[in-house]
């Protein structure tokens, strides 16, 4: 059928579609729409760097300007993925250097990025604007120096939570004096000090700088001079928030903060000296994001600060805030959408702060817009979870970590099946869930029955049998990512739901009851799944009997076939002999 509109018109229409899902849907309508979409796609998201080869992406989408790629599985954050596992960015850089000379944006998460990658980026992309390296590793300040020196149009350099080796060169000084386009700089993860004067000069000459996150080494008593040069800042991450107590520094800091009329986000706050907190009070009413998760200060000081922030939408804090603090938050912060409470003493045997399930109940009662929670605590009850679920059916992300594995309801000593069941029953829009505490297969039956929008599920030390896993895989229609550790889930559920795994991005199972035999079977049966076993014993896969349980299993769908960069402890279960490549 000859389409009445010329391609340019369709392309223009497609340009209003911003979500990848919509663009993917459009590309399936007919061949010409597929072609128009592929030539006009400017932004690509690769959720698993091994799901597709760089060449395949470049071939299909020749005019990309912005790419986002994720590497290692999420449990790599908790040291469950050994060194050298993979997630190398270099193959992508090398291909893109040739095919995407106009590339502007690179966003990576959990990937290994080397100085060679950064140098290649600096040389190859003349219009390079945005580099975001989230939880990445493998590079040093030398690589940063190359970016600074060469990327004339750089707007954003964000190293959030990456591990950067200090090569002790003054990388920041490599930004030429003519460079003025910086809009966002996040160096909060840098352990080494940066030259303060270079930093001062840099921020001074970049009038569009709106986001500045400093590292711990930047001293508090000099921040005022930085802030006076950047009155247009929207996001600020302080360095260490401590200095000798002098009225001069205080008033200088106070004055500088009061000049930041656009400020919406505050973070940093390492080593806080409470007496200096009032210096930020003048900006509190405009603050929507507050990250105090490094501030080891008492509840009273935390409360004083947080309750000044009536427009707060996102709060990250340590459990020093305690139940009383969260009650105050519930009363003052009616716009709160996201709360994360981190543990200050996660490895202590006894609780060190008065933070219990009650804090979470209070905020669920008092904050009508609360939709995203990450909460570490030491006890929970079904009653509290039911109350929370009834209060807040609008939860989209609910991650609860009861610090002691397999801890039951502290009131009834029952499993927490009913409580989490209430969460999935009431919160119909729930997309992400992390479980903890004592849980039987019953909770998984409830999850499979009710959590129809659930996309990501994290399970640890839970369940009784394969039935638990079966409920999840067969019931959760929207499931994309499933990560499991230390659960008695085994072969039956996995094999019975093999096809389901192709509808998901990935499955991680460690310290469970999955046997080699099952992995081999899965690998043989499902050619479009990469079934990778991680085995650090030093033995060879041929010596493994069928019944032997695997240490760690990572299964993901892929159109690229088994990867070629596996270390010797990762075995691909692709074919009959399952020999590691």
């Amino acid at each position, binding site marked *: 059928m000859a389409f009445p509109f010329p391609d340019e018109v369709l392309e223009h229409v497609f340009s209003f579609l911003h979500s990848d899902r919509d663009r993917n849907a459009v590309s399936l309508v007919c061949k010409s729409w597929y072609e128009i979409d592929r030539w006009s796609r400017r932004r690509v998201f690769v959720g698993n760097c091994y799901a597709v080869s760089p060449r395949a992406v470049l071939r299909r989408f020749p005019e990309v300007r912005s790419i986002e790629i994720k590497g290692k599985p999420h449990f790599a954050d908790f040291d469950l993925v050994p060194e050298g596992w993979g997630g190398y960015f270099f193959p992508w850089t090398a291909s893109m250097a040739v095919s995407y000379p106009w590339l502007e944006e690179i966003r990576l998460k959990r990937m290994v990025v080397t100085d060679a990658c950064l140098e290649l980026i600096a040389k190859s992309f003349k219009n390079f604007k945005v580099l975001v390296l989230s939880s990445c590793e493998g590079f040093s300040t030398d690589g940063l120096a190359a970016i600074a020196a060469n990327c004339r149009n750089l707007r954003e350099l964000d190293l959030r*939570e990456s591990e950067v080796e200090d090569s002790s060169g003054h990388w920041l000084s490599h930004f030429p004096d003519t460079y003025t386009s910086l809009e966002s700089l996040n160096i909060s993860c840098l352990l080494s000090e940066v030259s303060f004067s270079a930093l001062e000069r840099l921020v001074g000459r970049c009038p569009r700088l709106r986001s500045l996150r400093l590292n711990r080494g930047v001293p508090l008593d000099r921040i005022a001079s930085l802030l006076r040069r950047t009155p247009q800042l929207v996001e600020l991450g302080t360095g260490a928030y401590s200095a000798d107590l002098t009225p001069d520094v205080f008033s200088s800091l106070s004055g500088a903060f009061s000049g930041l009329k656009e400020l919406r986000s505050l973070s940093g706050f390492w080593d806080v000296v409470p007496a200096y907190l009032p210096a930020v009070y003048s900006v509190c009413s405009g603050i929507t994001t507050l990250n105090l998760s490094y501030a*080891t200060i008492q509840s009273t000081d935390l409360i004083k600060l947080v309750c000044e922030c009536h427009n707060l939408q996102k709060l990250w804090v340590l459990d020093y805030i305690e139940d009383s603090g969260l009650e105050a938050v519930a009363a003052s912060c009616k716009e709160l959408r996201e709360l994360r409470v981190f543990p*200050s003493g996660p490895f202590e045997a006894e609780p060190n702060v008065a933070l219990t399930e009650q804090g979470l109940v209070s905020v669920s009662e008092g904050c009508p817009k609360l939709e995203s929670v990450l909460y570490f605590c030491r006890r929970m009850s079904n009653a509290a979870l039911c109350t929370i679920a009834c209060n807040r059916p609008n939860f989209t992300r609910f991650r609860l*970590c009861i610090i002691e594995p397999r801890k039951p309801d502290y009131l009834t000593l029952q499993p927490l099946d009913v409580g989490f069941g209430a969460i999935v029953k009431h919160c119909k829009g729930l997309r992400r869930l992390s479980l903890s505490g004592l849980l039987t297969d019953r909770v998984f039956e409830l999850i499979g029955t009710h959590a129809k929008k659930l996309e990501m599920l994290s399970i*640890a030390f839970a369940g009784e049998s394969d*039935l638990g896993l079966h409920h999840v895989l067969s019931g959760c229609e929207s499931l994309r990512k499933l990560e499991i550790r230390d659960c008695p889930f085994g072969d*039956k559920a996995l094999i019975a739901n093999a096809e389901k795994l192709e509808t998901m991005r990935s499955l991680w199972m*460690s310290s469970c009851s999955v046997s080699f035999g099952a992995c081999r079977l899965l690998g043989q049966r499902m050619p479009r799944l990469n079934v990778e076993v991680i085995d650090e014993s030093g*033995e060879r896969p041929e010596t493994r009997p069928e019944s032997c*349980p695997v240490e760690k299993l990572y299964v993901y769908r892929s159109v690229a076939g088994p990867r070629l960069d596996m270390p010797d402890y990762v075995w691909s279960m692709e074919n009959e002999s399952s020999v590691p490549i």
Partner: protein
Amino acid sequence: MDMLCHRNIDLEATELRLGLPGTSERPITTPRGNKRPLDDFMEGSSTEDGDHLECPSAAPPSKAQIVGWPPIRSYRKNSLQQKKLGNQAETTTRVYVKVSMDGAPYLRKMDLSIYKGYRQLLIALEDMFKFTIGEYSEREGYKGSEYAPTYEDKDGDWMLVGDVPWEMFACSCKRLRIMKGSEARGLTCCL
């Protein structure tokens, strides 16, 4: 019997046990302690009998730390270790300062460390010298009485009590003086 799949080269690996590899010393068992065939579970698997896992809180205080648990990123763990409540170190040392009241025959001494804020201090001063301090405001100082509390700071300047945060005041205050009458009014007028 091939349950002896060697894992890491450590003592734990050479230990004979019926447990899943990579788990901690506590035996990983289901609440009933055995694996059951699949159809058993079709009837419903809630643990009605009180047959629960040994309650972890009964475990001895020093437990084997489980890898990757609780799920906290390593940069966060490191950050906590570095500064564990270092800033909480309250000064337990006493801070005695001389307190003088205009017109009073002799001076008094007060320990500033026992007060948590200005309100407590001012109440104590009112009580000690039997007078009333006015209402503090940033603009006009202490209105409503002929007294004004002042202090000498580290630089030797006489400052009005209440302008700076309490902790800052407590660190820099060398002595207190309750000014009275015209001198007090003069001080407040200048603000």
